[in-house]
Structure formats: structure tokens, C-alpha cells
């Protein structure tokens, strides 16, 4: 069975500082990895995804993530955050890339950006 661990439930950071949100997964098979962002009272929006190829994935809003197979990690980074990045971030893993995709989500990390 697959599982996703987001170790930090909340990450406070000052505006313009760099941030890393951690995600580790466990799976006995090859996986596909995703980061979603949820702004207050909204649905989930796809930030980026890793399906294959380059292990460094760039997403929207200046975010990027690096897939590390040996450490089973897919950490999300941004070199300089804005107040508007305040949101909850979810890491997810899937075995499939087409057809039925069972996404297994982590419990989320709340990013709090203050001035």
C-alpha cells in the first residue's frame, strides 16, 4: 500500500524568505507524485507533478520540487515566498498515470507567510 507523510503540519515563514515543505512517500512500485495547493475556502489546485524524466519539476507560482527516489522524497521549494502563498499544501502519490488514478494524500502542511 502507498502512503504519504508530510512531517510538518504548519510552517511559519517571513515574506521573501525561502521555504521547503517536506513530503516522503512509501510504495513498493513506481509512483507518480503531485503537489496541490488549497487557498482558504477553495478547492485544490495542481501546483506541479512528477511523472518521469527530470527529477527537478517546476510548477506554477515559482514553486519547484525535486524527486529523490533513494530517499523516497518529493520536497516542495520556493526561493522567495509572498504573502499570497499562505495556503495549505498537499502532497499526493498515485500508481497510475492514465485511467483510474487513486490519489493518496498526505495530511497537509499549512504555510503561513507573515510580513
Amino acid at each position, binding site marked *: 500500500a502507498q502512503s504519504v507523510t508530510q512531517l510538518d503540519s504548519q510552517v511559519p515563514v517571513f515574506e521573501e524568505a525561502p521555504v521547503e515543505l517536506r513530503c516522503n512517500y512509501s510504495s513498493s512500485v513506481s509512483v507518480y507524485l503531485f503537489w496541490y495547493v488549497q487557498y482558504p475556502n477553495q478547492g485544490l489546485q495542481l501546483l506541479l507533478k512528477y511523472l518521469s524524466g527530470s527529477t527537478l519539476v517546476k510548477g506554477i507560482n515559482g514553486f519547484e520540487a525535486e524527486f529523490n527516489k533513494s530517499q523516497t522524497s518529493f520536497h516542495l521549494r520556493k526561493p522567495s515566498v509572498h504573502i499570497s502563498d499562505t495556503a495549505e499544501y498537499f502532497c499526493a502519490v498515485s500508481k497510475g498515470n492514465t485511467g483510474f*488514478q487513486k490519489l493518496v*494524500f498526505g495530511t497537509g502542511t499549512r504555510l503561513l507567510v507573515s510580513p
Partner: protein
Amino acid sequence: DAGITQSPRHKVTETGTPVTLRCHQTENHRYMYWYRQDPGHGLRLIHYSYGVKDTDKGEVSDGYSVSRSKTEDFLLTLESATSSQTSVYFCAINTAQGREETQYFGPGTRLLVL
């Protein structure tokens, strides 16, 4: 925007009453999903559909049923709502970009069972 709407967006109901939530999509996507979101649990899959009249259970399906009589609509029913079903419910669809498919989510329905 993947053309997903959910209705109602907010609902308050009483324990023991039936509740139906609707997910509507406009782009003929085959796969549709229902998730619930609870603090400390992230999102968990309730049911999914892979075509008209074709549905299957997810990891937290007890107390829920679904129906899909048209491609565009996927209904989630709580036959007899309980307080433990107070949650935010999200519908999702698979959209294809070339050979890749990605799940996109609707805006959510906030359900309170008193």
C-alpha cells in the same frame, strides 16, 4: 478551470436525514471521484466512477452511495446522515494532456450534520 461545479456549496442538515450532493462536469471526462477532507486526514477517496453506471468504492465508502446516470453528473448520497459525515466534500475528474491524465478538483461542498 476544468469545468467542474458542485452543488450545493454549503448545507446544514440533521442526523438521520438523506443528503445528495451533485458534481457536474461539462467536458465529457470518463473518470470522476468523490473525496472527503477532514483535519488531520487530508483527502480520502469515497467512491469513483469510470463511466455511466460504472462505479466502485474507495477507502471510506461506508455510509455513502453514488450514482452516475449521465456522463456529466456524479451524485453522492448519504442515505442517513451522521455527525461523523460532517466534512468538506470534493469532486474531481481526470483530464487528459496528451498521454498524461491529471486530477482536477471542484470547489467543494461544506456539509454540517447536526
